[in-house]
């Protein structure tokens, strides 16, 4: 077990998640002061040095976003913590915010001062009322520490109203502004024109927690675990046919086989039946076979060999009884329900895919499906439509998951 993003068990027992003691014991006070002292250029250099990539799914280099926002000449800028977390199988931000809310919030304040923002927002999934309360408690602690308040950065919490698409960054801005959460076309990118059309830095909860850790320690400490390509740890959410479902903190580079089978993590399917398939990276992720899973490590370059990624860190396991057709139908229904409906390929494409699955005409419509999936990936406005067919295509490309001979 490794405890970095999560506090170690003794500290969790000894201090409340949203308390001054926790702030000090976790080193976040040191992190905040340290970041102020070394100045924004050095802060960004350190983030660059640990090769931090976004943990919200896309793994975009964090330092590049910070630099872009910092370099914008506008006097009004915003920073946003994305805690909308609504993808099936993804529940790590919830766990992190409940257990250690001061980490991500410290990261958010470091971000605000590094890029020159006076206003920060936390956008939290509407159903996460317990999380929202915990965040409010933590904000009170930060106010008492004198980090936020009049003349300093202020943090406002905004609650989502039940749409997965509101987690997409530009849809999230529209939601905060009071509009329908419809994604905007990029460019302009959020770093130039984001919230209220001002330069905006938006990061995932876990990304910001990593920032707090980095400045509570240093670059070498951070790089001591993980791989060269991806230093540090990742929160993974194990679900499905798994003996020990839950959120685990693991170093990048850990063998997927260990993560799935080892008793301190997943502990196998827990059903006494063999593993049939693994869905890597959530609903928009990639199905891989058990053979692939036992060869792979949890890292971007490694998973790329299988056409997969880490995504948000969701890993779903399915044992030999799983009906892949039904699972894919469920995923297709999710995308059809959650599409905002703005653009044609996604609005109608997600519906037609669902219908094909429901009527079990998948295999005889293979060629049409391939064209449809390609058009959705190529021509949809946002990541939802662009990735909605990923899991389906990856499953159809792996004949061993089915008893079907040919690939898509």
């Amino acid at each position: 077990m490794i405890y970095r993003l999560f506090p170690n068990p003794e500290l969790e027992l000894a201090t409340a998640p949203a308390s001054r003691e926790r702030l000090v014991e976790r080193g976040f006070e040191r992190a905040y002061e340290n970041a102020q002292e070394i100045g924004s250029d050095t802060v960004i250099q350190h983030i660059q040095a640990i090769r931090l990539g976004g943990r919200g799914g896309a793994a975009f280099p964090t330092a590049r976003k910070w630099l872009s926002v910092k370099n914008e000449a506008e006097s009004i800028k915003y920073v946003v913590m994305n805690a909308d977390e609504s993808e099936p199988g993804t529940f790590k931000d919830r766990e992190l915010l409940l257990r250690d809310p001061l980490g991500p919030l410290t990261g958010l304040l470091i971000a605000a001062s590094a890029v020159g923002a006076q206003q920060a927002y936390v956008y939290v999934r509407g159903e996460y009322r317990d999380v929202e309360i915990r965040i409010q408690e933590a904000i009170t602690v930060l106010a008492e520490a004198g980090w936020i308040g009049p003349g300093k950065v202020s943090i406002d919490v905004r609650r989502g109203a039940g749409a997965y698409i509101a987690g997409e960054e530009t849809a999230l801005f529209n939601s905060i502004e009071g509009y329908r959460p419809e994604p905007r076309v990029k460019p302009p990118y959020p770093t130039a024109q984001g919230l209220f059309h001002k330069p905006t830095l938006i990061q995932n909860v876990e990304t910001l927690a990593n920032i707090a850790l980095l400045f509570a320690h240093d670059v070498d400490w951070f790089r001591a675990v993980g791989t060269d390509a991806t230093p540090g740890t990742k929160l993974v959410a194990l679900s499905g046919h798994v003996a020990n479902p839950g959120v685990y903190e693991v170093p990048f580079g850990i063998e997927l086989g260990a993560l799935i089978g080892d008793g301190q993590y997943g502990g196998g399917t827990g059903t006494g039946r063999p593993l049939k398939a693994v869905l890597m990276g959530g609903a928009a992720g990639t199905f891989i076979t058990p053979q692939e899973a036992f060869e792979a490590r949890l890292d971007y370059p490694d998973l790329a060999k299988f056409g997969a990624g880490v995504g948000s860190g969701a890993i779903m396991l399915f044992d030999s009884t799983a009906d892949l057709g039904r699972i894919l139908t469920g995923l297709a229904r999710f995308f059809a329900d959650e599409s905002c409906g703005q653009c044609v390929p996604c609005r109608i494409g997600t519906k037609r895919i669902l219908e094909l699955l429901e009527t079990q005409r998948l295999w005889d419509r293979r060629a049409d499906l391939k064209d449809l999936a390609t058009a959705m990936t190529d021509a949809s406005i946002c990541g939802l439509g662009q990735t909605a067919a990923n899991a389906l295509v990856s499953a159809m490309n792996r004949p061993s998951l089915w008893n079907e001979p040919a690939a898509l």
Partner: protein
Amino acid sequence: MLHLTIDGVSINVPAGTTVLEAARGMGEYVPTLCWHPNLTPANACRACVVEIEGSRALVSSCSRQAEDGMVVKTKTERVHNARQVIAELLTSTNNTASAGDLQELVSHTAANTLRFAGGETWEQPLRDDNNLFVRNYDACILCYRCVEACGVDVQNTFAIAVAGRGFDAHIDTGFDRPLPESDCVFCGNCVEVCPTGALLDKKEYELRQSGRWEEQDITTTRTTCSYCGVGCELELHVMDNQVVKVTSPEDNPITHGMLCVKGRYGYEYVQVHEDITEPAP
């Protein structure tokens, strides 16, 4: 001037030109369904997508500004596939009988209109709740033009908006109220910009229904609206010596094709032949 390459040909365009304008300026065929010259690009139909070197996904050319050194391709296999599938998805959903641009996209991409057909469609009853225009949403492709015309782009009335999500996203007056109970001021600017016939003047709708709308018999006469001092330019569409429709030229620098309820719909008095001989009681 910006220098870019489109389909292997290098061209110079002034800063602020969109990729769509640049490509069309060279005579390339780039289809659009939702784009309208006088409205903000909605980016919704995705028919205008092109390949731009360095972009992973295709790019909607209607809203993308040309950049120096950009390399654009408008005729690749990916572009063709996207446009064809878009045409097929829309025809699988909507009544396209009066959607000219969409029909053109279908024939241009050789789309197979039956390929994705057979599932749920947008078939629904006609909304005929006022004397000025009808709403036939089974033809609606959700291009957002009416919403934009009703909103900040023209009218600032905000009577209609998109509601619902996914396949159920639709144009709504707010809980699907009849238009007269909504905030609508009946300017008809939404009708003016609708590319599919989903919104149609009541007069035109009735004439078409009874088979009396003869496009070739209609003449247009330019005149000036007599209602107020703005003096918008009007085009009277006349059939059988009767005004059947009033529009304003899309390229008129004052109206941009937009009018108010009086100019657009207040024309019946010119063809009422009973003289008023005494004041109304």
